[in-house]
């Protein structure tokens, strides 16, 4: 087939756009943007939004939305802080400190999970629009966070707990990890039968991204823990969506719920499950955020839901459901993260940052819908 010779640039469009933005920022910051130190910071900043965006991808794919994630991040952070400070889990002695840390993280994740159960249960059982339910949850969770924290920050947290947000894998191990996963990806790509020109482009990008990561993580302090967590979650998300029965079901459910139902897709179970998982991911993000700040703020995580939604949408996922990829959302998260980071480096006032970000989100989506309009074709790997 001669289509093998044609390179499907569409898949890499978001990646190219990301490289373009990074390149422009590197030029404007006279290289500061591309230093190891800045790239490490950037990746750590992206991690939380990225984790939320992976979960949000699934929610949007099934035609839903979750506005509560920002507040759930705050609430579960506060719960972790409460366990650390008020219950003294952060002050345990050396030997049993890990128990306190584990319990605190689990507490945060469990809190998020409960919020997800609440969202998913109301949405599936009573067929209320996800927009409304999660809007309510957004306000409820924020209120609960303020109540538990008595309106103030809870700090300081335990040192070991803080590692979750502030710690690094040593540079040497980081390089091993990055090179290792890069090689695994390459091996997979090489063993693919009937390689097309597009596949060789994929190989090139893998090499490029791996080198960039090695550059970033060897030169500063190594891989931040949140980035490792994000990478793991992103990998699981990608595999679930692309390779499993669940992924096929999710795409079908979002594309046409009636057809999916008729074909035996357990609609209610999947919908509920996806909201619960996003809730749990928001809980995990809450723990990471409070660990990074060494304190749980009941006002943390504001507008996180919008950043996550923006990342998903910039990544090419249709808000109507049924079309989209996890990979796109990850790129979207890096796109937004790069903009935030780059503009801060350039000393753009925060007021202007907001305007610019908004404009870019609209442009990205406009471009994407215009591209998609004629055939509504979905060509995803």
């Amino acid at each position, binding site marked *: 087939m001669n289509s093998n010779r044609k390179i499907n640039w569409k898949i890499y469009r978001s990646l190219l756009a990301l490289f373009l933005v990074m390149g422009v920022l590197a030029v404007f910051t006279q290289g500061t943007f591309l230093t190891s130190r800045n790239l490490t910071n950037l990746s750590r900043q992206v991690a939380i939004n990225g984790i939320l965006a992976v979960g949000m991808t699934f929610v949007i794919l099934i035609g839903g939305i979750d506005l509560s994630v920002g507040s759930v991040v705050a609430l579960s952070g506060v719960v972790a802080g409460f366990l650390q400070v008020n219950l003294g889990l952060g002050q345990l002695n050396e030997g049993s400190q890990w128990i306190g840390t584990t319990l605190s993280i689990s507490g945060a994740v469990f809190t998020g999970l409960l919020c997800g159960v609440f969202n998913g249960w109301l949405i599936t059982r009573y067929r209320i629009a996800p927009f409304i339910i999660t809007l309510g949850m957004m306000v409820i969770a924020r209120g609960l966070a303020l109540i538990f924290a008595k309106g103030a920050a809870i700090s300081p947290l335990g040192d070991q707990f803080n590692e979750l947000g502030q710690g690094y894998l040593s540079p040497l191990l980081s390089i091993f990890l990055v090179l290792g996963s890069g090689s695994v990806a390459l091996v997979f790509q090489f063993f693919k039968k009937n390689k097309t020109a597009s596949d060789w482009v994929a190989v090139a990008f893998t090499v490029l991204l791996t080198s960039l990561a090695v550059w970033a993580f060897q030169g500063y302090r190594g891989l931040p823990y949140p980035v490792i967590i994000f990478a793991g979650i992103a990998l699981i998300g990608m595999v679930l969506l692309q390779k499993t029965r669940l992924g096929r079901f999710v795409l079908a459910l979002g594309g046409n719920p009636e057809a999916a139902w*008729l074909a*035996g897709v357990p609609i209610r179970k999947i919908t509920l499950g996806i909201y619960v998982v996003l809730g749990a991911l928001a809980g995990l993000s809450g723990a990471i955020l409070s660990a990074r700040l060494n304190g749980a703020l009941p006002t943390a995580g504001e507008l996180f839901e919008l950043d996550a939604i923006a990342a998903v949408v910039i990544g090419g996922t249709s808000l109507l459901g049924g079309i989209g990829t996890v990979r796109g959302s990850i790129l979207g998260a890096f796109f937004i993260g790069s903009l935030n980071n780059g503009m801060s480096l350039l000393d753009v006032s925060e007021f202007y940052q907001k305007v610019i970000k908004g404009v870019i989100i609209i442009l990205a989506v406009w471009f994407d819908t215009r591209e998609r309009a004629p055939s509504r074709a979905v060509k995803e790997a």
Partner: protein
Amino acid sequence: MSDSAAPLLELRKISKNFPGTRALDCVELSVFPGEVVTLLGENGAGKSTLMKILSGVWPEGSFEGQIFIQGKSVRFRDTRDAHGAGVAMIHQELSVFPELTVAEHLELDQLPRWIDWKGLYTRTQSFLDSIGLELSAHDKVGGLSIGGRQLVEIARALYRNAQILVFDEPTSALTESEVRKLYEIINKLRKEGHGIIYITHRMDEVFELSDRMVVLRDGKNAGEILRCENGTVKSRKEIEPKIITWMVGREIQDIYPIKNKKIGAQLCRVQGLTLRSPRGKTLVHKLDFELREGEILGFGGLLGAGRSETFEALFGIFHPSGPRGRGFNKQGNLWIRNKRQDLKTPTDSIRAEMAFVSEDRKGNGLVLNQSIQKNLTLPLLSKPSVFPSNPICQGSWLTSFVNPVQSAKETQRWVKEFKIKISDIEQPVSELSGGNQQKVVLAKWLLTNPEILFLDEPTRGIDVGSKSEIYQWIQRLASQGMGILLASSEMPELLGLCHRIIVLREGKMTSELVSQNTSQEEMMRAAAL
């Protein structure tokens, strides 16, 4: 009505093409003042298309032929022009705004920016009184019964001074007393010299109301008869056989392959199947039937007789966790191979070796924006591989991996088997033609290797070539021992394919016919009388 009077409306040589089909072919229709013309025909005969042309939905230029109103040629660019010329449609699905009052509905298209409310209400109320409709101008339309809303539509038409009123199956949702009232109003309009076109499937109504009956078939005039000629009223017995022959007219063509002769043991038995809608309407009423191996059992009946609902209820589509299952009440028992089965959801049914080719490809048959491969393999994926027969996904978890090689292979196999014309298995199904889409739907269900196959209008809206291929398949599957339940609104199709036919009317079984010993006329009588 006298012969000398000029016709109020004349449609001359109306033809309209849709891509691939000729929906109307030189159709003629005239209506005289003070006459009720019933327009009859099977589904797809062209009634709706003709009425859409008359009401301006299909504008001038999209069809051939001419429209004359009171002898003058008219051209409609849109529905407004048709209103202006005095044509009004009383729709089957009433288009009303629940929050507006009756008065506002009457003047809806002429409301000024600043409304003189007092004037509006006195004006409209006196109009309503003058035409004798028992409506209050102040009532909100949302609070009225369906019959009441229909009166609003009629009032609206008359308020606009419409001379020609088209009623499209107006009684389908009315109660007995509302129907009586509607007849009274129609009789009154007739006396006042309005021209009325009445579309219905129900023979009782035809004889209750009409002065003339016009039958369409396959987009052509099939016949026309006056109720009353030379001063004598013709009896129903005399007219009815003629109408029915005109309606079903065409011969069964030999596109139907020879029927499967190997009928085996009982495959499934259904007893007392009943389905009630959330509003308490009985959609299917105490249905009993059985199906044997290799048998094709047909379900006939008019639109809304409960064919699809019977199938959907059996398959579990109305389970409350489904997209439109809330509030439905389903009862009845099902035995498969003499084993009592309680199949609640489509998932259960698929696992019990059933498959469902639905009527509405775009609605619930396919995920249009997704690839042929993803569509084809979807139902099989909901069968966990406790059945060793699942080649594309081993393991019964939601997170079990799909085998991409097998998935592509199975897709290729069925694409080849059905001669589906595609460029690539990753092509979205929305890019395929109707016939090819239908083959994808059929293939995706055959991939699950079912024992019982539900086919709901399997050939609706597809070309003759694909149709005959699908017919071949149906007989081939039956000869392999599959039990097939087939619902169709096309009687020749039922007669040409099925061994037995169950005719439904308003959710009840009116007769069970053996297709060798029956005729379209007998089926029509069972469906409509």
